[in-house]
């Protein structure tokens, strides 16, 4: 890393916070999640901390609000509201390539990018949640190869529509998965078109990210694996002619802060006690495909659970999460009881500690090449975000790892600033990459 490099920091807006009981320890009411004030306040706090972006995941189905109240608003609608209270903050929303139409989505997101002054990013995902397919007239989700094949063409079509928007040119795409003949008559945005993120941790997800993504939300629990995976992604991007720095790897990082380690731990314990019974066990179990309550709490997870082979094509959950968690369990060869307690990030890495400890961990991973930044998963909103902005961000800024002021106005422009030596990612990387690889082929 060269000294000029800067962290990318975002906040994952998960309801009242990442801890399921966050709403029970703050003066908040359920209806806060469906009005503008709560979200706009979070946007203002994030902007006060000069954070790069806020992020919404998405799940187009109804979840049980008593387990965790998430996604009560459609993500891009909520982001638009946040945009109206902020000037610089980037806005990253998730939309499924499985259950949207590419022309409709391209049109909608380009409009939102226009009215927000070039601050939008799209996190392109495929949908594996079985509850969703029934809302769209299917008995089950398409299998993984089909979903990713569609996703690759989908992202390609969307970005081509964006690049030609307003030019009068029609995009004609005839592929194995999609046939599209359309054009967008809309004006381009201040950053041209939205930035593309990707969140899948499987091999197919990495290939998709290498081709199209400017940011990747990864799931990493161990430093070595994170370094390897980031390198693999950068290599994959370089192989198709992209500059490796044009893809930002932003793992989730769960944080519970206290002014002392003891205070942070007490808060963490309190929030765990108030969480719905068995929440951590159920989440860990879902990644390991086992009912954790049937395991001996005093012994490590048996090998037969970890060694179980799964059919990747039909696996109905996140393959990336599963791999990461299984590896983490193997490396933490400890009792099921201790594993459950340490699994407080529910799949993301968690740091429970003081602002210095959190900053140290962020710096260590950044300098080790494990991450370009982090998507922060904060225990409770708005309190936890205020604490991060007031106590962690100043440490990172003093260490020269994070900006003191916003520079470029658009999200894409700001990403380019984090690696000043890399080419501006607004260049047409895909067509550049094709010409480079063709040159390589002809030189052989």
């Amino acid at each position, binding site marked *: 890393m060269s000294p000029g490099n800067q962290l990318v920091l975002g906040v994952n807006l998960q309801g009242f916070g990442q801890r399921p009981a966050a709403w029970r320890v703050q003066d908040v009411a359920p*209806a806060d999640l469906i009005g503008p004030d709560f979200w706009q306040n979070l946007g203002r706090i994030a902007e006060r901390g000069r954070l790069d972006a806020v992020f919404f995941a998405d799940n187009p189905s109804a979840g049980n*609000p008593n387990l965790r109240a998430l996604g009560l608003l459609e993500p891009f609608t909520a982001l638009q509201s946040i945009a109206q209270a902020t000037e610089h903050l980037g806005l990253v929303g998730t939309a499924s390539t499985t259950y949207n139409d590419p022309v409709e989505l391209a049109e909608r997101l380009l409009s939102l990018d226009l009215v927000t002054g070039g601050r939008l990013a799209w996190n392109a995902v495929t949908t594996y949640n079985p509850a969703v397919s029934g809302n769209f007239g299917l008995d089950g989700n398409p299998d993984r190869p089909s979903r990713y094949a569609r996703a690759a063409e989908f992202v390609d079509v969307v970005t081509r529509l964006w690049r030609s928007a307003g030019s009068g040119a029609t995009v004609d795409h005839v592929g194995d998965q999609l046939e599209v003949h359309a054009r967008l008559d809309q004006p381009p945005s201040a950053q041209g078109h939205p930035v593309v993120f990707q969140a899948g941790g499987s091999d197919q997800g990495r290939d998709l990210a290498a081709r199209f993504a400017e940011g990747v939300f990864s799931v990493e629990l161990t430093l070595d694996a994170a370094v390897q995976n980031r390198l693999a992604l950068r290599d994959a991007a370089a192989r198709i002619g992209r500059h490796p720095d044009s893809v930002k790897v932003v793992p989730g990082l769960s944080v519970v802060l206290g002014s002392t380690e003891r205070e942070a731990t007490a808060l963490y314990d309190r929030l765990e006690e108030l969480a719905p019974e068995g929440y951590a066990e159920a989440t860990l179990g879902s990644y390991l495909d086992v009912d954790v309550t049937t395991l001996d709490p005093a012994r490590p997870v048996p090998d037969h659970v970890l060694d179980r082979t799964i059919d990747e094509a039909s696996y109905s959950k996140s393959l990336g999460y599963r791999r990461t968690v299984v590896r983490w369990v193997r490396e933490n060869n400890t009792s099921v009881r201790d594993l459950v307690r340490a699994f407080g990030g529910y799949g993301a890495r968690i740091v429970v500690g003081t602002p210095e400890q959190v900053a140290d961990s962020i710096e260590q991973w950044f300098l080790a090449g494990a991450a370009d930044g982090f998507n922060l998963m904060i225990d409770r909103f708005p309190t936890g975000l205020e604490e991060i902005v007031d106590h962690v961000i100043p440490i990172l800024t003093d260490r020269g790892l994070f900006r003191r002021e916003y520079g470029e106005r658009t999200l894409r422009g700001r990403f380019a600033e984090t690696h000043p030596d890399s080419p501006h990612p607004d260049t047409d990387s895909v067509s550049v990459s094709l010409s480079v690889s063709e040159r390589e082929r002809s030189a052989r």
Partner: protein
Amino acid sequence: MTDTTRFPAIGLLLDDEAVLEAVAPRSTGVGTTARAALARLVAHGVSFVVLGHRDPSSPRRVEPSVAAGEVARLHRDLGVVVAADPDRDHPYNLARRLLSIDSLTGGFAGLLLDPAPVATPHARQTHWAGDVTRDDVAEYADLVTTLWGTFARESLVGDRATGLFARSELLRRADHEGRWPVRGGLGTPSSVQGLPPVLWWAVDPSRGGGDVPAQADAAIVRHLSQTPVLPEYLLTDVAGVRRDLSTVSDGVVVRLRSGEWAAAVEAVLEARPASTAPPAPSLRAALGLPPRSADISGLSPAFPAAAPTPQGVRS
């Protein structure tokens, strides 16, 4: 149906170019005239705008639900009626997005459906997309309004002591069959205005417009008394505002094209003094429509009731 103590409602049907003028980022220097004109129109009784309804010759310049979010930002009590593309936009996605706008505006969103909408481009493999008939669009209205009722906002409790966030047993599954089968309900709680109003484009009776389905709350018509039961909003142009406002009881929808902002202000100001009445509490109220909630009586629960435990509730 109509509150005779009220003036007839005035809405604007904006073409995409006019919308773009109103919602362009201030940094672009575009839109000052349009925004000033809109402010005067609102002060003189314009209570809603209709976004995204196009004729075949006009290109889509801005996506209507995004436009709605921006117009609502300009004027807190201005209703935003979004024209859906039922041939392309899945009703689950549209219902969720529009209810989210409704939540964020505090009950000022509505839906416009045209039984013969302008075709929108889409991928051939988008399995729910394709040409729609009048009956399909009526089904769309039925499904969207059903979905809007599946998560009753009254279910939200937020009892911190017991950990009961919501009375989950009140949430419903849609279990809708038809052109768009939908199993589950929405994850977005219902509207403070009960159901966001559904307007039916009855301007072209020959294209199914005259046959207004029961799910619609009101119709936009070319001639009055097309729909003997429902409130009617007479479609007029800027030049006809004064004439038509004097003849209607429910209201007019003024078709306003790019470049007509100043003329629209002149026409509305001549026809209507500045309003001294307090703004209506919702779009439904602004349109003079009676209260209406989704009928979810036949729908199955989506989740069991949460069970109290010594630690809190268990779901």
